[in-house]
Structure formats: structure tokens, C-alpha cells
């Protein structure tokens, strides 16, 4: 086979994480098109690793890879690329992936497409889909110079069959030591917010509420529902309107209430990642083209400062039995 695809496993302390199987699914789709060989690469300090289903595994093994550093991962990727001569390198678009993947592309002087959400095969060609223009439009990319490095959004591809036959495991002992990076350590945040986690109705505020005082509107709207809680976009939290433990999204909470009401939220993919499993989504936004409307069951094109008071009046009318 002339065409080769290399994926870099997502791992935590040597344990391969499930998102790796999504990368394999993406590789299988592209590989089906080019008839490629597919190899998974695991950087780490793991001399003893289980095989993975559906692909051969190349373990780049070095004490300097015991924990993630961009430097270490980039060196491991270059080493593996030297061995496998990949046409395409697939990496997860996670906080580690977007830290080092563009570096790998630059050092190999290849092309790079980040946060890929889909692959389109048509007319004998392959296109990579990703979101842009504040999430309002999608773009279809054509690959350029090889190797092509892509980072794939978690959740974009259904995980590859984990029952498939395990591949072979090969070890490459290396001496990789980060020289520019030191004193690395990690912290686990405790950002629990039980009210939000258990709420059946979430009323979420975005930058579009404009000012802290308008949070009162959000609270009053929440009070119209039982078992409700308020939440916010990252910008609402950055502005200090809400605590960070109320942030919904990629770097915040994942919620899946019966009802999610997005008020003045544009609908960037980082926010959608945290609420897309909600049963019913209602959005209030004054921009008719806002991306959030693509992810909503009920769309309300209105200024929230006018609409929310109107809705509260409506709810009060019913509550008082005036209708």
C-alpha cells in the first residue's frame, strides 16, 4: 500500500482513551478511500501495552514521555513519522491535540486542518469539513502539501468497532527529553454545581445579555419553571456575571436537561459541545444568522431584553389562571 495514515492515540498515564477509537473511525473512512495502511502511535513511558482493535500499534517509549508536554509529543510524532512516512496524521482536537498538532505540521512542513467535524467523499475526491465564521458557516477544505495533519473533534465520528481483531504491537525505545519545558504538574478542578447538574430546565445567559443587571431577567425566567437552574457561556463567566462552575461547554459542564434555553448565546461549537444532548433547545437571539439556531428546536429572533419580560408576563398570566 502506498498510502499511509498515522493516528496518535489519546492517552492518560499510558491508558488509551476512548476518543482514540473515534480517530480510528475517521482513519478508516479516509483509508477506505485511499486504500491506506493505518497505524496507531502511542507516545508514552509504557513498555507493556495492550494491542488495540483494528490497527497496528507503534509505541514510542521513553521515560521523558511519562507525562504530556508539547515538546515530547512533537518529538515522538516526528520520530514515528520518520518511520511510517504517513500521508495523513490524525490527532484528537483536545487540549493536548491543539497544543502540539500545529507544531507537528509546521515541523514537517505539511498542511494542517484543525477541529475537523466531518469527511466528505464525492467525485473521487475527499474534503474535510469544519466550522468557521463564528460557527455560522461550514468550510470544505482540500488537502495541500503532505503530510496533512488533521485534528478531529471529539464526538464527530462514532467510535470504531472495538471488537475488531487486535493488531500487532511494536515498541520503539527512544530517548526523548523535553529541554525547554520543566516542572510540569497538573491539577484537577472541583467545580461541582449540583443544582445545575440535576436541573431539568437550564436557562443559559451569553454575552448577549449585555450587563450583569440583566442576569435578573434570566433568574426570573428560570423561576417560571420547576427544577430549573441558570448557567452561562464562557464569555458570561469571563465577564464575572456568573461563577465558572456555571459555565456550559467544552471547558465547562456538559448538561443534558429536558429544556435548555440559550439567551444571547451565539452557538460556537465549544458551547454546543456542552449542551447538544439537551432534549429540547430554545434560543433567543437578535441575529437571525446566529449559529445557535442551527442547534435549536425553537428559534426566537428577538432582543432578549424585550422578549424575556414578555415571556415572564405570559407565564404569570397562566400561573394566575388569567388565561
Amino acid at each position: 500500500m502506498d498510502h499511509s495514515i498515522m493516528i496518535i492515540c489519546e492517552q492518560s498515564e499510558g491508558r488509551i482513551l476512548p476518543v482514540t477509537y473515534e480517530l480510528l473511525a475517521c482513519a478508516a473512512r479516509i483509508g477506505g478511500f485511499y486504500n491506506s495502511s493505518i497505524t496507531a502511535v502511542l507516545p508514552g513511558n509504557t513498555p507493556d501495552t495492550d494491542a488495540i482493535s483494528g490497527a497496528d500499534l507503534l509505541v514510542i517509549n521513553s521515560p521523558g514521555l511519562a507525562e504530556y508536554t508539547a515538546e515530547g509529543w512533537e518529538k515522538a510524532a516526528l520520530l514515528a513519522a520518520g518511520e511510517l512516512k504517513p500521508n495523513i496524521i490524525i490527532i484528537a482536537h483536545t487540549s493536548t491535540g491543539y497544543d502540539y498538532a500545529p507544531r507537528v505540521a509546521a515541523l514537517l512542513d505539511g498542511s494542517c486542518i484543525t477541529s475537523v467535524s466531518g469527511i466528505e467523499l464525492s467525485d473521487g475526491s475527499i474534503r474535510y469539513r469544519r466550522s468557521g465564521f463564528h460557527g455560522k458557516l461550514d468550510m470544505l477544505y482540500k488537502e495541500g502539501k503532505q503530510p496533512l495533519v488533521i485534528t478531529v473533534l471529539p464526538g464527530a465520528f462514532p467510535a470504531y468497532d472495538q471488537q475488531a481483531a487486535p493488531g500487532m504491537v511494536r515498541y520503539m525505545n527512544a530517548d526523548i527529553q523535553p529541554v525547554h519545558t520543566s516542572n510540569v504538574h497538573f491539577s484537577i478542578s472541583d467545580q461541582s454545581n449540583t443544582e445545575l447538574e440535576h436541573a431539568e430546565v437550564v436557562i443559559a445567559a451569553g454575552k448577549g445579555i449585555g450587563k450583569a443587571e440583566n442576569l435578573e431577567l434570566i433568574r426570573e425566567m428560570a423561576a417560571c419553571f420547576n427544577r430549573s437552574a441558570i448557567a452561562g457561556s464562557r464569555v458570561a463567566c469571563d465577564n464575572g456575571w456568573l461563577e465558572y462552575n456555571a459555565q456550559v461547554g467544552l471547558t465547562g459542564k456538559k448538561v443534558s436537561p429536558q429544556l435548555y434555553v440559550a439567551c444571547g448565546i451565539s452557538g460556537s461549537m465549544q458551547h454546543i459541545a456542552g449542551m447538544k444532548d439537551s432534549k429540547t433547545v430554545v434560543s433567543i437571539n437578535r441575529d437571525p444568522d446566529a449559529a445557535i439556531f442551527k442547534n435549536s428546536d425553537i428559534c426566537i429572533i428577538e432582543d432578549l431584553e424585550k422578549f424575556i419580560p414578555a415571556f415572564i408576563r405570559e407565564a404569570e398570566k397562566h400561573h394566575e389562571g388569567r388565561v
Partner: protein
Amino acid sequence: MKILVCIKQVPDQESRITVDPEKAWAGYAENASYWINRYDEHAVEAALQIREKLPGTMIDIVSIGPARVKAAIRRCMEMGADQGFHLRYEHEDYLSPSIKSRLIAEFCRDRDYDLILTGVMSEDMMSGQTGPMTAARLGIPSAASVMKLEVDLEKQCLYVERELDAGHRCFMELKLPALAAVQSGINRPRYPSLSNVMRAKSTEIEEISYDDSLLDAKYETVEKVLEAGSDRAGLTLQGSTAEKAAALWQLLHERSLI
């Protein structure tokens, strides 16, 4: 200490965009307004805060783009940056981060920056590539999604806190020179002061020429721009504000949500 902040000017996200089926790019309305990429404003603020702790620090701004980006560069100088540099690129089309990072790396070559700051991503393209790629081309370390920065000149290192998924953090030290791609939440960008506005008025923004052949490199291209896929039915309510409010109550009531 010399700091470079890379900034991009982006269209106001409420500006109307139109997709021209003939072109592989989407156009913003003539009257679209532009601002500094929000993440880059945080990067400028981070540089200013470092200078407050380390007097004598010089802060340069660089931006690639058409004539209009001068306004964004000027705004950074009004916030307090010392010098502005403009790499003219007239086209409103897709410019690969691979090319942008080569242009910026080339610009940095003999300027001896100790620290380069970028945003974690641009609001319109959301690629998050330009920063880490620039660092890789210069052979210096980088960290993306940075929530805290401190310079230790004695140790010649940069202490950074990175935001990981689900709010976890990673702490580390990078040897200077280094690049940090900053995340929102790192600080609150200041408003320009009157004295800086006056000073910025009289400071030239220098246009930097570059090797045009860098633009010809065959990296990935955007072939088509299309409507974002839709995951939900998307019923748009019609009528007056009060009618929409009544309709929403009714729909939620039918679904036993209120």
C-alpha cells in the same frame, strides 16, 4: 525584555455574511464593522501587565491583513503597546495559518523577542494554528490555552498555567524565548487611556515588506463555504413579541416543560 503580540482583525460577528456560490469564500457586508480578535485583546493586556512588573519592557504589535487592520493595530497602541507593524495582504480570502506563521516567523527572525503572545484562536476562523506553528518554525516552546503567565527574568523562564478539558489545569515552566497562546479569562483588557490615545496618534505604524513567494506555498485550501449543518428541526416563531411569547409558552406547555 521584548514582547511581540500577534493580532488579527475580525468582523463583528453580527455582520451579515453572504456566500457567493461562484467563490470559495464568504463575503461580509460592505458596511461590516471590524474589531480586534477578542483573544488577542487579552494577549495585549497580558503583555501590558508584564511590562507593569518589568519596567523597560518593549511591546510590539504585528498584524497581517488589508489596509483596514491598521485601525486594530492602532487600538493596541492606544491600549499602551509601543510599536506597530503591518504586513500588507490585500485579499479577503483564506490565508493558510501555515503561511501566516511563516510570515510572522520571518518577521521575528532578527528582532530578538523574548516572548511572543497570540490568541488561542481567531474568532472567525477558529483554527488555533498560527501561534503554535510560529513557535515551531522559530524552534521555541509554546503553550496553548494559557490562563496565567509570569516571567522570571533571572531564570529566563516563563511560568504558565494551561487550561485543559473540563476545567483541569496544567502548570509548567518554559525556557525563554517562548510563545503563549492566551485564552479568555486570563485578564480583563483595559480601555485606552487618553494619554495613550494621544501618543498613538503621533506614532507611525510601520509597513513591513516580505518575500511574496511565501504566499505561493501549496498548503491546504478552502474549496467551498456552505451553510452549517443543522441537527435540529428549528421552528422559527413568527409574529409580534407578545405573540411569540405566547407561542413559546404554548409549545413548552404541550411538551409538559412548563
